[in-house]
């Protein structure tokens, strides 16, 4: 198939950047979106030009490295699908495709389509963990967890940290990500000790990074390749308000 690409090119965080147009004449409908970009880059390298920088790693939809806004949709038009799992058969012969990086103050562009998502790491660092004693491994079934609770915690834990929720949100808010990370631990017995410190600290870090606030548009839920639900945001809000209004610090000293 033939396609026309309008790709965002930006040399560095300081560069202004602009779209660059490329035509590809023999793209296989069976190639993935990233393979199509590889094909573009092969051509650019042959011409001695800079290839388009984009993040990717597993290419099987589980690592969360890839991510770009394709024709106005985070990860492209197919629901519940990362950019790496998107295939060119989703597009028509002769289509024009616009590719832009995630846009958020907290995700500065490094180069072209690659953005710096270390703000997510700092949110995790602020509380997305449980403290355990090292030493001999605990018995696997020492703490009984009801199947339904384990399933729900797993639903939240499927967040791959890709940032599509931020990209899709009209407010560039990272509340879907933060709520998934707050909740998958907060659901489990092991996560109870730090539960209220966790939500306080992770939300404070979320805000400090310069993400916007949630106004309940729901764009994040629709864009999320893992189907993380808005219900997690409501749950985080419950925990956060309780933590702020009624709960003392449990672990961390202020």
């Amino acid at each position, binding site marked *: 198939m033939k396609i026309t690409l309008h790709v965002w090119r930006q040399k560095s965080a300081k560069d202004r950047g602009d779209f660059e147009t490329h035509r590809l004449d023999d793209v296989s409908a069976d190639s993935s979106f990233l393979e199509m970009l590889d094909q573009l880059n092969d051509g650019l390298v042959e011409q001695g030009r800079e290839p388009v920088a984009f993040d990717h790693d597993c290419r099987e939809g589980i690592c969360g490295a890839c991510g770009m806004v394709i024709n106005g949709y985070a990860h492209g038009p197919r629901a519940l699908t990362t950019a790496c799992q998107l295939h060119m058969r989703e597009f028509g012969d002769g289509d024009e495709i616009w590719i832009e990086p995630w846009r958020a103050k907290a995700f500065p562009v490094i180069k072209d389509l690659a953005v710096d998502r270390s703000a997510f790491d700092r949110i995790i660092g602020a509380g997305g963990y449980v403290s355990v004693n090292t030493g001999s491994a605990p018995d696997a079934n020492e703490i009984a967890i009801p199947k339904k609770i384990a399933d729900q915690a797993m639903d939240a834990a499927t967040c791959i940290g890709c940032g599509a929720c931020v990209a899709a949100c009209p407010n560039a808010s990272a509340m879907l990500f933060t709520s998934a990370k707050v909740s998958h631990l907060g659901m489990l017995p092991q996560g109870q000790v730090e539960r209220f410190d966790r939500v306080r600290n992770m939300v404070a870090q979320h805000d400090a990074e310069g993400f916007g606030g949630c106004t309940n548009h729901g764009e994040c839920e*629709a864009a999320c390749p893992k189907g993380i639900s808005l219900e997690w945001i409501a749950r985080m809000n419950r925990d956060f308000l309780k933590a702020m209004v009624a709960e003392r610090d449990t672990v961390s000293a202020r």
Partner: protein
Amino acid sequence: MAGQALSLPQTTIGKKAIMAASSIILMGFLVGHLGGNLLIFADNPEQAVNAYSNWLREFGHGSVIWIVRAVLIAAVLGHIWGAMTITARNKAARPVGYRRKQSLRSTLASRTMVYGGMAITAYIIYHLAHLTFHAGIPGGFNPLDDPAYPHLTTNVYLNLVESFQNPGIVGIYVLAQVFLGLHLYHGAWSFLQTLGASHPRYNETRKLAAAAFAGLISVGFILIPLGVQFGLVK
């Protein structure tokens, strides 16, 4: 962790919770205000409206209306403060926008909350000037000195009827209610989500109830100017 000693209003969730709490007060007011105003469709509307208005000023030896006004002003200010700080923050969070952006789930209502809010604010100012301070009533100030309504200095019923015979004033009121309805269509489910009320058991109902509430409030208020305009008020 350094810098964690935040207070609720400093956080994005806290600001939204303040907006949600104040909106509960404002929505409660809307229900009461609509209920009272619909008295204009009573059999003897002049008597019903003026008696109700007199009662508002008399209730609790005249203290309740001032308490309610104070609470409403606080709620409006809290709501607007939250809206302004959140909006400023959200605009700053995306300095470079998209060339192409498609919406999947957001609604016209959710995307226009701040504009609708500004329109409602303008309307509240106009509405207070109009019917509380009696500026721009077509027939002029309607003095009332009736021992049956000792707390009224003006004929509230006549103010309404004279005003809503003017199509321009009717237009302003109807338009304002369209904005209000849109604001509530998103707001009335959003405040529950903000306060953490979400469960698959009732989430569908939550959306429907919000839409119904928005529709009933805005249609209810629209009936009043239209009712006068089209002679449905006795």
